[in-house]
């Protein structure tokens, strides 16, 4: 077990390095750099002045040295300053992180709960009209592009029915701040979560089906246990062991979807920030965000692997 853990941790670190190098290289390839971005193209600043600024900021060193400097600062969570807003990047990220976490967290919890329930129902009533309906639903949510679903949601629920607000994460001067935030959270959270729900439903359904036909289920029933206990305690529990891994595997897509959803619903989180940063060529911010996302993904998959190893003793002693 310990060896497995250490192996996975080393892997995670390697991946983080790899990504940081890739992003750094991509950004170094870009025309113009931080100093150029500080002045408009037709400014009077002489090339010599620019060169001196570069020397001061350490931008004239060759790429590997710059990378090491950047890495050294990044490890201490100092990502420098955003080019477009001149604020320290760590502060910007820290401020907007809770908003995105709310959205992603809501979608995650919603899809896990819904996925489990619908997947279990579909498996238990296999081939019934309910199963077909649920399967069709899953296919639909998986096929509709998220931004189209978001637009549809806004059109139906916000514009025509006026049940939920369409944009933003809160209304200024609302009476009850918490309720208002929840109100704003429903549409984007639902849009983001439905895709994952569909994937999880299909997974739970097929996994549970496999388990239901296995021998130990027959034994449990033969023991005379009530059907519900048989299904939940023996069937579901065993079917769900790789469930954590499945969720962790879909997490990158969830984060990608968050970017789209935040754009459609004007949700002021990290996704929207990433997009505006990329279009503004705000390279330090883009790099920091890319790294942050990757860290989240790598850590969550690491945790998922650990949880899987804890839950399934077969892995530990493999």
């Amino acid at each position, binding site marked *: 077990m310990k060896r497995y853990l250490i192996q996975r941790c080393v892997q995670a670190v390697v991946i983080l390095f790899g*990504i940081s190098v890739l992003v750094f290289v991509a950004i170094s390839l870009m025309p113009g750099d931080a100093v150029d971005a500080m002045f408009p193209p037709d400014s009077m600043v002489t090339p010599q002045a620019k060169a001196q600024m570069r020397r001061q900021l350490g931008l004239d060193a060759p790429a590997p040295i710059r990378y090491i400097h950047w890495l050294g600062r990044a490890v201490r969570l100092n990502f420098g300053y955003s080019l477009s807003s001149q604020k320290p990047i760590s502060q910007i990220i820290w401020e907007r992180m809770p908003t995105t976490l709310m959205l992603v967290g809501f979608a995650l919890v919603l899809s896990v709960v819904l996925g489990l329930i619908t997947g279990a129902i579909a498996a238990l009533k296999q081939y019934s009209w309910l199963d077909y309906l649920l399967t069709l639903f899953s296919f639909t949510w998986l096929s509709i592009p998220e931004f*189209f679903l978001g637009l549809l949601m806004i059109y139906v629920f916000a514009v025509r029915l006026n049940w939920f607000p369409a944009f933003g994460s809160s209304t200024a001067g609302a009476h009850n701040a918490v309720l208002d935030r929840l109100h704003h959270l429903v549409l984007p959270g639902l849009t983001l979560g439905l895709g994952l729900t569909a994937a999880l439903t299909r997974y739970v359904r097929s996994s549970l089906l496999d388990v239901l036909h296995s021998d130990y289920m027959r034994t449990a029933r033969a023991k005379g246990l009530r059907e519900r206990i048989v299904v939940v305690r023996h069937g579901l529990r065993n079917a769900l062991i790789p469930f954590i891994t499945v969720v962790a595997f879909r997490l990158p897509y969830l984060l990608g979807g968050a970017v789209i959803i935040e754009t459609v619903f004007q949700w002021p989180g990290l996704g929207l920030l990433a997009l505006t940063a990329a279009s503004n*060529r705000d390279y330090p911010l883009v790099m920091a965000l890319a790294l942050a996302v990757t860290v989240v993904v790598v850590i969550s998959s690491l945790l998922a692997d650990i949880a899987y190893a804890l839950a399934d003793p077969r892995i530990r002693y493999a």
Partner: protein
Amino acid sequence: MAASLTARQGATITLEAAHHERRRPGVWRRFVRHRLALAGLIFVAAMGLAALLAPWLSPYNAYKMQLLDARLPPSLHHPLGTDTLGRDILTRVFAGGRVSIAVALSAVAISSTLGTFLGVVSGYVGGAVDAALMRITDMFMSFPLFVLLIVLVPVLGPSATNVVLILGLFSWMGVARLVRGQVLSVMTEPYIEAAIASGANSRRIVLRHVLPNSMVPVIVASTLNVANAMLAEAALSFLGLGIQPPTPSWGNMLNAAQQLQVLVQQPWVWLGPGGAIALTVLSINFMGDGLRDALDPRYHR
């Protein structure tokens, strides 16, 4: 002498039996049993044909602005209405389909080829090469593709070629893993041993025996990857990072809906392309599912 002759004959017979293992006639029959898959195939074929013949299908030009006809609701003249610049939506949907389908197919061509190559090498050679390739695959799999796209596309410039390249170069991992697994299991089959025994060199074994028998999961995965690539391209174009207007693509046609007025008052502008994407991807998913069941009847859900 007699013993070796018999061994050679045995090897030849086993090899021939292996070639007849393709089960071609049953595949189609099993496929059409899935009505949804069949419907999917028909829809995709129809959409593909429409996309291919787009320039000749409609009297309207997908690019020319006709401001006098702007923002018309659906009618007999314009079955899906016109957009803010007066262009017929249905024509643009077909033209956009051309672009979107072409991008998706190209990206999958790249990723499937790359994935198959790496998977075969990994599975066949094994050992350190296999371990190294699997580590690289794991590393690539951890890259959140979308974030990478958002970082790289502004760097490289938004264009169809870049989108295809990036999508293709970062989607090969699933196929590689599948192929590797399949190659590993094919390698344990008796006809491989027979081929080695009858003196076939590595290249022949791979090309004539390993590869054809490992293609089943690749075909299914590639079909599903086309759907994913289409969604990814649509999302990128929607965000403005993919195909740039005036070239229509289903994604960037939906970008118009970002304006509240279009969203609320001219829903036909975005319902058309959005529905097109949804239906096409749905059909491809159904097809992929049907293919999976048809090509490998031992795999039951």
